């Protein structure tokens, strides 16, 4: 249990809404190796070991993202202290395939795993990764994902976080995007008793872009935390964040987003939106969308709303003979679809919609 020492507490600004140590105290666990399986595109994958290629070592030896500014890399350190396992995905120059790569991460009771993923897309490559997180029992998965996107490369990253409702899931994703590169990420959160989806994107070359979207569906006493930092380090870059949270029962939703525009990053286009729906009296939503801007020729804006379902809309549907529960589900679905409809991959969009519908029926 040496790891407990370096855990972030609520005294840290970026952890003020999420009490990780308290949640972890609730169950015993042992350090283990993560159970990870892949489907398709096997030639791109190799295990992460103690003896890795030089380029991998070069990436892992970099200081953690945002260390200097935020000092909230406690999770990263915790993962570094743990035994090294995980996978390397190396996508060669101009690699194109219509087939997505599927990855399934399964947690087991009383496990503590810290898998590490190093993903490199060389110039002009394109890859779609579908990541499923699932498991049974109480466990803590603290993953680190380091992504390097080369010139003009595109990485589509879909994450279905459906961990056991007793588990704690923390994942630290660090994406570095070169000139005209693109990082498209979508996360659907339906699982884990506590989850922290921490993303740090560096837009390092001109014309780089990142689109971070997500839907958080929270019920019971669960907590879903999305913490994002986007650093605009070059001119003419674009970043977009679009999140929807539906918070029911006694659940808590957290959204912290930060757009940091460096002085060199003129002509930046930054946008951030977090809308949330509270469904019950005991539900809580904490939002902190931040802008930190040092360049004057920029277009940056953010918006956030928080409230309940529109009574008039509900009434309208009921007046037309739609039962209340169904009307409610319909409206929530419409609220979420603003984000899910941005998924360009048909199969994945249908998959996401199906999961959302299932969650809504159970509500």
């Amino acid at each position, binding site marked *: 249990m040496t790891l407990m020492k370096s855990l972030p507490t609520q005294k840290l*600004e970026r952890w003020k809404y999420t009490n990780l140590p308290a949640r972890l105290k609730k169950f015993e666990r042992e350090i283990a190796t993560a159970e990870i399986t892949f489907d398709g595109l096997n030639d791109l994958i190799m295990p992460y070991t103690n003896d890795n290629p030089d380029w991998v070592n070069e990436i892992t030896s970099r200081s953690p993202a945002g260390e200097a500014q935020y000092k909230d890399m406690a999770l990263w350190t915790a993962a570094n202290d743990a035994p090294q396992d995980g996978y390397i995905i190396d996508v060669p120059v101009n690699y194109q395939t219509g087939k997505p790569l599927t990855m399934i991460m399964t947690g087991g009771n009383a496990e503590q795993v810290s898998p590490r993923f190093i993903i490199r897309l060389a110039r002009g490559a394109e890859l779609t990764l579908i990541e499923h997180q699932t498991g049974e029992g109480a466990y803590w998965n603290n993953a680190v994902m380091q992504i390097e996107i080369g010139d003009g490369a595109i990485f589509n990253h879909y994450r279905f976080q459906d961990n056991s409702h007793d588990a704690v899931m923390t994942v630290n994703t660090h994406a570095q995007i070169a000139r005209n590169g693109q990082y498209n990420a979508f996360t659907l959160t339906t699982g884990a008793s506590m989850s922290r989806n921490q993303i740090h994107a560096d837009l390092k070359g001109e014309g780089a872009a990142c689109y971070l979207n997500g839907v958080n569906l929270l019920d019971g006493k669960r907590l879903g935390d999305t913490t994002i930092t986007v650093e605009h380090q070059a001119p003419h870059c674009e970043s977009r964040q679009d999140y929807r949270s539906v918070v029911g029962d006694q659940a808590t939703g957290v959204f912290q987003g930060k757009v940091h525009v460096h002085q060199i990053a003129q002509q930046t286009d930054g946008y951030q939106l977090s809308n949330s729906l509270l469904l019950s009296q005991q539900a809580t939503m904490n939002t902190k969308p931040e802008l930190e801007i040092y*360049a*004057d020729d920029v*277009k940056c804006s953010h918006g956030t709303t928080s409230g309940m379902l529109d009574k008039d809309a509900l009434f309208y549907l009921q007046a037309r003979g739609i039962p209340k529960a169904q009307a409610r589900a319909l409206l929530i679905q419409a609220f979420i679809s603003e984000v899910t409809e941005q998924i360009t991959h048909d199969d994945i969009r249908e998959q996401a919609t199906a999961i959302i519908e299932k969650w809504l029926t159970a509500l």
Partner: protein
Amino acid sequence: MSEAQEIIANTEIDQDTLDAVKSLSTYEAGFETDIEMEYAPKGLNEDIIRLISKKKEEPQWMLDLRLKAYAHWLTMPEPKWAKVDFPEMDYQDAYYYAQPKNFDAKPKSLDEVDPKLLETYAKLGISLKEQEVLAGVEGAAQVAVDAVFDSVSVGTTFKKALSDVGVIFCSISEAIQDHPELVKKYLCSVVPMADNKHACLNTACFTDGSFVYIPPGVKCPMELSTYFRMNAINTGQFERTLIIADKGAYVSYLEGCTAPMRDENQLHAAVVELITHDDAEIKYSTVQNWYPGDENGTGGIYNFVTKRGLCEGVNSKISWTQVETGSAITWKYPSCILKGDNSQGEFYSVAITNNKQQADTGTKMIHMGKNTKSRIISKGISAGRSDQTYRGQVKIMAGAEGARNFTQCDSLLIGNQCGAHTVPYIDNKNPTSQLEHEATTSKVGEDQLFYCKQRGISEEEALALIVNGFCREVMQNLPMEFAVEAQKLVGISLEGSVG
């Protein structure tokens, strides 16, 4: 501490200061009044606090409160969360009490006040002579003024007219003596003694400030205003303002502040507490124009202010309007605690930073009562090498059924060396509430500037015009007298930021 131990110092202006004043015509309030001052010894300790209390002829309970605050202040850490950067403060290297000499025998009326003091205020465009105000343009609004010079209140105008309707408007020192029951009841009730380090310091050593009490059902017949002037060198100003609007009362209160230009940083740690009972309303407006330091960031005021209003009663309302152009560092979050059902809080702010100024300002709206409403409009303009942060919190407690908040923070950047940041916290614990937050950051459009210049308006004038347009929503909320001054200030503050 014996009276003999007090040092009496002459504040002579040295040639350097005079030269500095001449070379910098932009900060018009930067002159210094050559008046003999009496200081308490430098530094802060229990004896100084006892001295302040004695000078003010305070009752024992007040001294006890001060000493308690002081003891607690020693244990408190410096607040470090704001996005401002300045060297650690040496609290022992400042004077905590300064008053014009011979002020011990308090002037009975304004006629007895040293003419030099009155001149200072006249130069700043504030008339303390009632006759002059009365003889002014017919129909012009009357404003009652409480003028605070360093650590003492110089005089309060229109006292009689106000007391006729039952309004108490006096310096806080007088209030402690004349209305101890009110002061005792409300002081530290909104900003607790140990709220934060700066507020705690203020409680320990506040010297003067204004006290306002509006009795039930009274609409204050004129605007009330306090003018703070920091004149003496190396002094800190710690003023305390307490405004109470009883059931159904209404008051509009204005606050202005200036200081001479100096190379040293001076500390201004004020506390303002507002309380509104059922159906009452307080409108509090500030034009803060402390000396901002020169273009290299030397000198200027550290403005660390705690302002908070409590909407205690149902249907009550507190409205903060601020125009912040001065100070080297601003650390200020006028807040509202919306406790009474249907109460309303408003915050309108324009903050302008130029050169090396730093401002971390915003508001807190704590919704506790049912159907409480709040509105935040913040306009930040950064120019030169300044840094500005909007930091705000909207908190909806579980019991705040039907709470409503609208927040808009817009930032305007002028030049590529400045920074503009937005740090909003939105914590919602009630599903029936409706919260909206919007923020944008942009620069002054080239085409807008071009349009103005094409019509013969100089670049600086055009900029002032555009910026005034950008802040219009807030400026509209200022009382007439202030609105004109504030618009001029916008222009002056931005001088040298284009071209």
